[in-house]
Protein backbone atom coordinates (compact mmCIF):
# COMPACT_ATOMS: atom_id res chain seq x y z
CA UNK A 1 0.00 0.00 0.00
CA UNK A 2 1.32 3.41 -0.83
CA UNK A 3 0.95 5.83 2.01
CA UNK A 4 -0.96 8.95 0.99
CA UNK A 5 0.02 10.81 4.15
CA UNK A 6 1.87 14.11 3.52
CA UNK A 7 2.06 17.73 4.52
CA UNK A 8 -0.87 19.60 3.25
CA UNK A 9 -0.18 23.19 2.24
CA UNK A 10 -3.35 25.15 2.22
CA UNK A 11 -3.65 28.26 0.10
CA UNK A 12 -3.31 30.35 3.26
CA UNK A 13 0.10 28.83 4.04
CA UNK A 14 1.47 29.34 0.53
CA UNK A 15 0.17 32.90 0.47
CA UNK A 16 1.66 33.67 3.87
CA UNK A 17 5.06 32.21 2.90
CA UNK A 18 5.24 34.17 -0.37
CA UNK A 19 4.10 37.40 1.28
CA UNK A 20 6.51 36.81 4.20
CA UNK A 21 9.41 36.25 1.84
CA UNK A 22 8.62 39.44 -0.07
CA UNK A 23 8.34 41.45 3.16
CA UNK A 24 11.59 39.98 4.49
CA UNK A 25 13.41 40.74 1.22
CA UNK A 26 12.12 44.31 1.19
CA UNK A 27 13.08 44.78 4.85
CA UNK A 28 16.64 43.52 4.27
CA UNK A 29 16.97 45.63 1.11
CA UNK A 30 15.72 48.74 2.94
CA UNK A 31 18.00 48.11 5.94
CA UNK A 32 21.07 47.72 3.67
CA UNK A 33 20.19 50.95 1.88
CA UNK A 34 19.62 52.77 5.17
CA UNK A 35 23.05 51.67 6.38
CA UNK A 36 24.66 52.84 3.11
CA UNK A 37 22.89 56.21 3.22
CA UNK A 38 23.77 56.60 6.88
CA UNK A 39 27.45 55.93 6.17
CA UNK A 40 27.42 58.37 3.27
CA UNK A 41 25.83 61.15 5.32
CA UNK A 42 28.18 60.54 8.28
CA UNK A 43 31.21 60.54 5.96
CA UNK A 44 30.02 63.77 4.32
CA UNK A 45 29.63 65.44 7.73
CA UNK A 46 33.03 64.10 8.80
CA UNK A 47 34.65 65.73 5.73
CA UNK A 48 33.29 69.12 6.73
CA UNK A 49 34.21 68.52 10.39
CA UNK A 50 37.83 67.79 9.46
CA UNK A 51 37.94 71.06 7.51
CA UNK A 52 36.51 72.97 10.47
CA UNK A 53 39.00 71.30 12.84
CA UNK A 54 41.89 72.43 10.61
CA UNK A 55 40.90 76.13 10.78
CA UNK A 56 42.16 76.87 14.33
CA UNK A 57 45.47 75.18 13.52
CA UNK A 58 46.32 77.95 11.07
CA UNK A 59 49.17 80.06 12.34
CA UNK A 60 50.42 83.58 12.33
CA UNK A 61 53.57 84.36 10.39
CA UNK A 62 56.46 82.17 11.40
CA UNK A 63 55.54 79.11 13.43
CA UNK A 64 54.43 75.66 12.39
CA UNK A 65 51.91 73.48 14.19
CA UNK A 66 51.87 69.69 14.45
CA UNK A 67 48.70 67.91 15.53
CA UNK A 68 47.85 64.20 15.56
CA UNK A 69 44.18 63.62 14.78
CA UNK A 70 42.83 60.66 16.74
CA UNK A 71 39.73 59.28 15.05
CA UNK A 72 37.13 56.91 16.48
CA UNK A 73 37.24 54.53 13.50
CA UNK A 74 39.70 53.68 10.77
CA UNK A 75 39.34 56.43 8.18
CA UNK A 76 40.47 57.27 4.69
CA UNK A 77 40.85 60.97 3.92
CA UNK A 78 40.88 61.85 0.23
CA UNK A 79 42.35 65.22 -0.69
CA UNK A 80 41.29 66.47 -4.11
CA UNK A 81 42.34 69.67 -5.81
CA UNK A 82 40.76 71.66 -8.61
CA UNK A 83 42.72 74.68 -9.80
CA UNK A 84 39.98 76.20 -11.96
CA UNK A 85 38.09 79.31 -10.87
CA UNK A 86 39.32 82.36 -8.99
CA UNK A 87 41.08 80.46 -6.19
CA UNK A 88 40.53 76.79 -7.10
CA UNK A 89 38.93 74.38 -4.65
CA UNK A 90 40.19 71.95 -2.02
CA UNK A 91 37.82 69.02 -1.60
CA UNK A 92 37.97 66.70 1.39
CA UNK A 93 36.19 63.37 1.18
CA UNK A 94 36.01 60.83 3.97
CA UNK A 95 35.40 57.09 3.95
CA UNK A 96 35.13 55.22 7.23
CA UNK A 97 35.72 51.50 7.69
CA UNK A 98 32.67 49.46 8.65
CA UNK A 99 31.99 45.96 9.93
CA UNK A 100 28.72 45.80 7.96
CA UNK A 101 28.97 45.15 4.22
CA UNK A 102 32.18 46.11 2.43
CA UNK A 103 34.93 47.43 4.71
CA UNK A 104 35.44 50.52 2.52
CA UNK A 105 32.56 52.09 0.65
CA UNK A 106 32.79 55.06 -1.69
CA UNK A 107 33.75 58.21 0.25
CA UNK A 108 31.07 60.75 1.18
CA UNK A 109 30.22 63.90 -0.76
CA UNK A 110 33.11 66.38 -0.95
CA UNK A 111 33.38 69.19 1.57
CA UNK A 112 34.79 72.13 -0.38
CA UNK A 113 37.15 74.79 0.91
CA UNK A 114 38.66 77.68 -1.04
CA UNK A 115 41.23 78.70 1.57
CA UNK A 116 42.80 75.33 2.44
CA UNK A 117 45.71 73.53 0.79
CA UNK A 118 46.20 69.87 1.71
CA UNK A 119 49.35 68.05 0.68
CA UNK A 120 49.18 64.27 0.94
CA UNK A 121 49.92 61.17 -1.07
CA UNK A 122 46.85 59.16 -2.06
CA UNK A 123 44.24 58.80 0.65
CA UNK A 124 45.68 59.27 4.15
CA UNK A 125 44.55 56.15 5.99
CA UNK A 126 44.43 55.04 9.60
CA UNK A 127 42.87 55.60 12.99
CA UNK A 128 45.48 58.29 13.58
CA UNK A 129 46.12 60.98 10.99
CA UNK A 130 48.92 63.51 11.35
CA UNK A 131 48.66 67.16 10.40
CA UNK A 132 51.41 69.72 10.10
CA UNK A 133 50.52 73.33 9.36
CA UNK A 134 53.18 75.60 7.90
CA UNK A 135 52.89 79.19 6.72
CA UNK A 136 54.02 80.01 3.19
CA UNK A 137 55.57 83.48 2.97
CA UNK A 138 56.52 84.81 -0.50
CA UNK A 139 57.48 87.37 0.90
CA UNK A 140 54.18 88.17 2.64
CA UNK A 141 52.04 85.37 3.98
CA UNK A 142 50.24 83.56 1.16
CA UNK A 143 48.55 80.72 3.05
CA UNK A 144 48.95 77.96 5.58
CA UNK A 145 50.06 74.71 4.00
CA UNK A 146 48.45 71.60 5.48
CA UNK A 147 50.68 68.54 5.34
CA UNK A 148 48.75 65.37 6.00
CA UNK A 149 49.76 61.74 6.34
CA UNK A 150 48.31 58.59 7.86
CA UNK A 151 49.83 56.03 10.21
CA UNK A 152 50.11 53.60 7.29
CA UNK A 153 52.71 55.77 5.54
CA UNK A 154 55.98 56.75 7.11
CA UNK A 155 58.87 58.81 5.82
CA UNK A 156 62.48 58.30 6.76
CA UNK A 157 64.83 61.27 6.31
CA UNK A 158 68.42 60.42 5.43
CA UNK A 159 70.93 63.06 6.60
CA UNK A 160 68.68 66.11 6.13
CA UNK A 161 70.09 69.67 6.32
CA UNK A 162 70.03 71.39 9.71
CA UNK A 163 66.83 73.46 9.25
CA UNK A 164 64.81 70.47 8.08
CA UNK A 165 66.30 68.28 10.83
CA UNK A 166 65.25 70.87 13.43
CA UNK A 167 61.67 71.02 12.10
CA UNK A 168 61.36 67.22 12.07
CA UNK A 169 63.02 66.75 15.45
CA UNK A 170 60.90 69.44 17.14
CA UNK A 171 57.80 67.25 17.02
CA UNK A 172 59.48 63.88 16.32
CA UNK A 173 57.63 63.73 13.01
CA UNK A 174 59.75 61.18 11.17
CA UNK A 175 62.84 59.09 11.90
CA UNK A 176 66.16 60.69 10.91
CA UNK A 177 68.96 58.32 9.94
CA UNK A 178 72.52 58.54 8.61
CA UNK A 179 72.14 55.91 5.92
CA UNK A 180 69.27 54.79 3.70
CA UNK A 181 69.73 51.15 4.82
CA UNK A 182 68.65 52.16 8.33
CA UNK A 183 65.15 53.05 7.06
CA UNK A 184 62.46 50.44 7.62
CA UNK A 185 61.15 48.65 4.53
CA UNK A 186 57.66 50.11 4.94
CA UNK A 187 58.81 53.73 4.95
CA UNK A 188 59.64 56.09 2.10
CA UNK A 189 63.29 57.10 2.21
CA UNK A 190 63.99 60.79 1.61
CA UNK A 191 67.56 61.67 0.57
CA UNK A 192 69.28 65.00 0.06
CA UNK A 193 72.56 64.06 -1.53
CA UNK A 194 71.69 62.28 -4.73
CA UNK A 195 71.36 58.73 -3.34
CA UNK A 196 68.91 56.33 -4.92
CA UNK A 197 66.00 56.86 -2.53
CA UNK A 198 62.21 56.88 -2.97
CA UNK A 199 62.26 60.67 -2.73
CA UNK A 200 65.35 62.60 -3.84
CA UNK A 201 65.71 66.27 -2.88
CA UNK A 202 68.16 68.45 -4.82
CA UNK A 203 68.84 71.40 -2.51
CA UNK A 204 70.74 73.38 -5.17
CA UNK A 205 68.15 73.06 -7.92
CA UNK A 206 65.36 73.26 -5.29
CA UNK A 207 63.69 70.21 -6.80
CA UNK A 208 62.15 67.00 -5.48
CA UNK A 209 62.04 63.79 -7.53
CA UNK A 210 59.39 61.27 -6.54
CA UNK A 211 57.90 58.35 -8.49
CA UNK A 212 59.98 59.45 -11.50
CA UNK A 213 58.47 62.96 -11.53
CA UNK A 214 60.35 66.12 -10.68
CA UNK A 215 58.75 69.19 -9.09
CA UNK A 216 60.31 72.44 -7.86
CA UNK A 217 59.83 74.15 -4.50
CA UNK A 218 60.62 77.28 -2.56
CA UNK A 219 60.94 77.63 1.25
CA UNK A 220 58.28 75.61 3.14
CA UNK A 221 56.93 74.09 -0.06
CA UNK A 222 59.72 71.50 0.23
CA UNK A 223 57.58 69.53 2.72
CA UNK A 224 54.58 69.60 0.38
CA UNK A 225 56.77 68.41 -2.50
CA UNK A 226 58.11 65.51 -0.40
CA UNK A 227 54.75 64.38 1.00
CA UNK A 228 52.32 64.96 -1.87
CA UNK A 229 51.70 63.34 -5.24
CA UNK A 230 53.31 65.45 -7.96
CA UNK A 231 49.89 66.08 -9.58
CA UNK A 232 48.34 67.25 -6.33
CA UNK A 233 51.42 69.37 -5.53
CA UNK A 234 51.33 71.17 -8.90
CA UNK A 235 47.57 71.75 -8.58
CA UNK A 236 47.87 73.17 -5.06
CA UNK A 237 50.73 75.38 -6.22
CA UNK A 238 48.53 76.79 -9.00
CA UNK A 239 45.88 77.61 -6.38
CA UNK A 240 48.50 79.16 -4.08
CA UNK A 241 49.80 81.33 -6.91
CA UNK A 242 46.28 82.51 -7.71
CA UNK A 243 45.96 83.60 -4.09
CA UNK A 244 49.42 85.19 -4.21
CA UNK A 245 48.36 87.12 -7.30
CA UNK A 246 45.24 88.45 -5.56
CA UNK A 247 47.24 89.32 -2.44
CA UNK A 248 49.77 91.21 -4.57
CA UNK A 249 46.97 93.43 -5.82
CA UNK A 250 45.65 93.87 -2.26
CA UNK A 251 49.13 95.01 -1.11
CA UNK A 252 49.47 97.16 -4.25
CA UNK A 253 46.20 98.93 -3.38
CA UNK A 254 47.34 99.29 0.24
CA UNK A 255 50.62 100.81 -0.99
CA UNK A 256 48.73 103.32 -3.12
CA UNK A 257 46.56 104.18 -0.10
CA UNK A 258 49.69 104.78 2.00
CA UNK A 259 51.23 106.93 -0.78
CA UNK A 260 48.10 109.08 -0.72
CA UNK A 261 48.64 109.87 2.98
CA UNK A 262 52.31 110.68 2.35
CA UNK A 263 53.92 107.40 3.38
CA UNK A 264 55.66 106.11 0.26
CA UNK A 265 56.71 102.49 -0.05
CA UNK A 266 58.29 102.47 -3.57
CA UNK A 267 57.28 98.87 -3.98
CA UNK A 268 54.39 99.17 -6.45
CA UNK A 269 56.34 98.10 -9.57
CA UNK A 270 57.62 94.91 -7.96
CA UNK A 271 54.19 94.08 -6.53
CA UNK A 272 52.74 94.50 -10.01
CA UNK A 273 55.43 92.16 -11.38
CA UNK A 274 54.69 89.58 -8.68
CA UNK A 275 50.97 89.86 -9.37
CA UNK A 276 51.52 89.29 -13.09
CA UNK A 277 54.05 86.46 -12.62
CA UNK A 278 51.82 84.57 -10.18
CA UNK A 279 48.75 85.20 -12.37
CA UNK A 280 50.56 83.68 -15.37
CA UNK A 281 51.89 80.76 -13.26
CA UNK A 282 51.66 77.38 -14.93
CA UNK A 283 54.23 75.02 -13.44
CA UNK A 284 56.62 74.80 -10.49
CA UNK A 285 59.53 75.52 -12.88
CA UNK A 286 58.44 79.18 -12.70
CA UNK A 287 58.93 79.28 -8.91
CA UNK A 288 62.56 80.41 -9.20
CA UNK A 289 61.55 83.58 -11.08
CA UNK A 290 58.70 84.30 -8.62
CA UNK A 291 61.08 83.71 -5.73
CA UNK A 292 63.52 86.31 -7.12
CA UNK A 293 60.77 88.94 -7.40
CA UNK A 294 59.53 88.17 -3.89
CA UNK A 295 63.06 88.50 -2.48
CA UNK A 296 63.33 91.93 -4.10
CA UNK A 297 59.99 92.95 -2.57
CA UNK A 298 61.17 91.75 0.85
CA UNK A 299 64.37 93.83 0.49
CA UNK A 300 62.52 97.04 -0.45
CA UNK A 301 59.84 96.52 2.20
CA UNK A 302 62.45 96.02 4.96
CA UNK A 303 63.83 99.46 4.19
CA UNK A 304 60.46 101.22 3.86
CA UNK A 305 59.23 103.66 6.52
CA UNK A 306 55.67 102.30 6.38
CA UNK A 307 56.06 98.57 5.94
CA UNK A 308 53.40 96.91 3.82
CA UNK A 309 53.89 93.60 5.62
Amino acid sequence: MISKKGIEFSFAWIFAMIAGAVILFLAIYAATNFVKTERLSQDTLAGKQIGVILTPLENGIASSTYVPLKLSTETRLYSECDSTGSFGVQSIRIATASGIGKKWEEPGAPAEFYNKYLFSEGPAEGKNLFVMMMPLNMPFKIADLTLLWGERKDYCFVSPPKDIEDTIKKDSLFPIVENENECSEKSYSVCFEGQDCDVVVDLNAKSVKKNGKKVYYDNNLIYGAILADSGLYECQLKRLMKRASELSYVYLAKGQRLNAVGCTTNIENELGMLGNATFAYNSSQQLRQISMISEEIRRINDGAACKLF
Partner: protein
Amino acid sequence: MGLHVNYSKGQMKIQQMAFVLVGVFIFFALVGLVYVSVRMAVLKGDSGDLKESDALENVRMIYSSPEFIWQAFDCEGCVDLDKAMVLKGRKIYSNFWGLDYLALKRIYPQGRDIECSEVNYPDCSTITIINKTTNVGAVYGAFVALCRWDESGRTRCEIGKVYSSGRGI
Protein backbone atom coordinates in the same frame (compact mmCIF):
# COMPACT_ATOMS: atom_id res chain seq x y z
CA MET B 1 -34.92 43.58 -1.59
CA GLY B 2 -31.20 43.90 -0.93
CA LEU B 3 -28.34 42.44 -2.94
CA HIS B 4 -27.22 39.16 -1.45
CA VAL B 5 -23.75 37.81 -2.27
CA ASN B 6 -22.45 34.49 -1.06
CA TYR B 7 -18.71 34.41 -0.36
CA SER B 8 -16.94 31.07 0.05
CA LYS B 9 -14.63 30.50 3.06
CA GLY B 10 -11.53 30.64 0.77
CA GLN B 11 -12.52 33.96 -0.72
CA MET B 12 -12.97 35.42 2.73
CA LYS B 13 -9.48 34.26 3.72
CA ILE B 14 -7.93 35.83 0.62
CA GLN B 15 -9.65 39.08 1.43
CA GLN B 16 -8.43 38.95 5.01
CA MET B 17 -4.86 38.36 3.90
CA ALA B 18 -5.02 41.12 1.31
CA PHE B 19 -6.16 43.49 4.06
CA VAL B 20 -3.36 42.30 6.36
CA LEU B 21 -0.81 42.76 3.55
CA VAL B 22 -2.00 46.27 2.76
CA GLY B 23 -1.88 47.03 6.48
CA VAL B 24 1.67 45.71 6.81
CA PHE B 25 2.86 47.77 3.82
CA ILE B 26 1.19 50.92 5.13
CA PHE B 27 2.80 50.29 8.53
CA PHE B 28 6.29 49.93 7.01
CA ALA B 29 5.75 52.97 4.79
CA LEU B 30 4.80 55.02 7.85
CA VAL B 31 7.82 53.73 9.79
CA GLY B 32 10.01 54.66 6.80
CA LEU B 33 8.51 58.14 6.60
CA VAL B 34 9.03 58.73 10.33
CA TYR B 35 12.64 57.49 10.04
CA VAL B 36 13.38 59.74 7.04
CA SER B 37 11.88 62.81 8.69
CA VAL B 38 13.79 62.16 11.96
CA ARG B 39 17.04 61.61 10.04
CA MET B 40 16.49 64.77 7.98
CA ALA B 41 15.93 66.75 11.17
CA VAL B 42 19.10 65.29 12.76
CA LEU B 43 21.12 65.98 9.58
CA LYS B 44 19.80 69.53 9.43
CA GLY B 45 20.80 69.98 13.06
CA ASP B 46 24.29 68.55 12.45
CA SER B 47 24.70 70.77 9.39
CA GLY B 48 23.60 73.80 11.43
CA ASP B 49 26.04 72.91 14.23
CA LEU B 50 28.87 72.63 11.69
CA LYS B 51 27.87 75.94 10.13
CA GLU B 52 28.03 77.57 13.55
CA SER B 53 31.35 76.01 14.55
CA ASP B 54 32.79 76.95 11.12
CA ALA B 55 31.75 80.57 11.65
CA LEU B 56 33.11 80.48 15.21
CA GLU B 57 36.50 79.10 14.16
CA ASN B 58 36.66 81.54 11.25
CA VAL B 59 35.90 84.53 13.45
CA ARG B 60 38.52 83.37 15.97
CA MET B 61 41.21 82.88 13.36
CA ILE B 62 40.44 85.53 10.76
CA TYR B 63 43.37 87.65 11.98
CA SER B 64 45.77 84.91 10.86
CA SER B 65 44.34 84.84 7.34
CA PRO B 66 46.84 86.44 4.91
CA GLU B 67 44.12 88.79 3.67
CA PHE B 68 43.76 90.31 7.15
CA ILE B 69 47.02 89.63 8.97
CA TRP B 70 49.01 92.62 10.20
CA GLN B 71 52.58 91.70 9.28
CA ALA B 72 54.50 94.96 9.81
CA PHE B 73 55.47 93.63 13.24
CA ASP B 74 54.65 90.43 15.09
CA CYS B 75 51.22 90.99 16.59
CA GLU B 76 48.88 88.18 17.59
CA GLY B 77 45.25 89.11 16.98
CA CYS B 78 45.99 92.21 14.88
CA VAL B 79 44.02 92.91 11.71
CA ASP B 80 45.35 95.15 8.93
CA LEU B 81 42.56 97.69 8.49
CA ASP B 82 43.99 99.06 5.22
CA LYS B 83 43.89 95.60 3.65
CA ALA B 84 40.37 95.02 4.98
CA MET B 85 39.31 98.25 3.30
CA VAL B 86 40.78 97.00 0.00
CA LEU B 87 38.98 93.66 0.41
CA LYS B 88 35.65 95.47 0.85
CA GLY B 89 35.59 96.25 -2.83
CA ARG B 90 36.77 92.88 -4.11
CA LYS B 91 33.85 90.63 -5.06
CA ILE B 92 36.24 87.77 -5.82
CA TYR B 93 36.44 87.02 -2.08
CA SER B 94 32.68 86.66 -1.57
CA ASN B 95 32.83 82.82 -1.43
CA PHE B 96 36.39 82.46 -0.23
CA TRP B 97 35.85 81.84 3.50
CA GLY B 98 32.50 80.09 3.11
CA LEU B 99 30.75 82.84 5.08
CA ASP B 100 27.46 84.64 4.57
CA TYR B 101 28.52 87.67 6.57
CA LEU B 102 31.87 89.18 7.53
CA ALA B 103 32.42 92.63 8.99
CA LEU B 104 34.89 94.58 11.12
CA LYS B 105 33.70 97.20 13.58
CA ARG B 106 35.71 99.69 15.59
CA ILE B 107 34.69 99.61 19.27
CA TYR B 108 37.16 102.01 20.85
CA PRO B 109 37.78 104.89 20.36
CA GLN B 110 34.22 105.44 19.25
CA GLY B 111 33.99 107.42 16.06
CA ARG B 112 31.17 108.13 13.70
CA ASP B 113 29.02 105.00 13.58
CA ILE B 114 28.86 104.72 9.81
CA GLU B 115 29.92 102.28 7.13
CA CYS B 116 33.37 102.95 5.73
CA SER B 117 33.78 104.08 2.14
CA GLU B 118 36.67 105.37 0.03
CA VAL B 119 35.52 108.91 0.90
CA ASN B 120 35.20 108.71 4.72
CA TYR B 121 37.90 106.11 5.59
CA PRO B 122 39.35 106.04 8.27
CA ASP B 123 36.77 108.35 9.90
CA CYS B 124 34.16 105.58 10.10
CA SER B 125 33.38 102.51 12.20
CA THR B 126 32.29 99.51 10.11
CA ILE B 127 33.80 97.69 7.15
CA THR B 128 31.35 95.11 5.76
CA ILE B 129 33.31 92.74 3.54
CA ILE B 130 30.67 90.05 2.90
CA ASN B 131 26.93 90.50 3.24
CA LYS B 132 25.11 87.98 1.09
CA THR B 133 21.66 87.99 2.54
CA THR B 134 19.48 89.94 4.93
CA ASN B 135 18.82 86.77 6.96
CA VAL B 136 22.33 85.63 7.92
CA GLY B 137 21.47 83.62 11.03
CA ALA B 138 23.64 83.62 14.15
CA VAL B 139 26.48 86.16 13.95
CA TYR B 140 29.58 85.54 16.07
CA GLY B 141 32.00 88.19 17.19
CA ALA B 142 35.57 88.26 18.50
CA PHE B 143 37.75 91.09 19.71
CA VAL B 144 40.73 92.07 17.55
CA ALA B 145 43.12 94.98 17.24
CA LEU B 146 42.48 97.02 14.10
CA CYS B 147 45.84 98.38 12.94
CA ARG B 148 46.82 100.85 10.20
CA TRP B 149 49.43 103.45 9.36
CA ASP B 150 48.18 106.91 10.26
CA GLU B 151 48.91 110.23 8.51
CA SER B 152 52.02 110.83 10.63
CA GLY B 153 53.55 107.51 9.51
CA ARG B 154 52.98 105.75 12.82
CA THR B 155 51.16 102.52 13.54
CA ARG B 156 47.76 103.07 15.06
CA CYS B 157 45.90 100.13 16.60
CA GLU B 158 42.34 100.43 17.90
CA ILE B 159 40.03 97.98 19.62
CA GLY B 160 37.55 96.38 17.30
CA LYS B 161 35.47 93.32 16.71
CA VAL B 162 35.18 90.95 13.81
CA TYR B 163 31.71 89.52 13.12
CA SER B 164 30.92 86.51 10.96
CA SER B 165 28.14 84.12 10.12
CA GLY B 166 28.77 80.75 8.52
CA ARG B 167 27.25 79.03 5.56
CA GLY B 168 25.76 75.49 5.76
CA ILE B 169 26.96 72.44 3.91
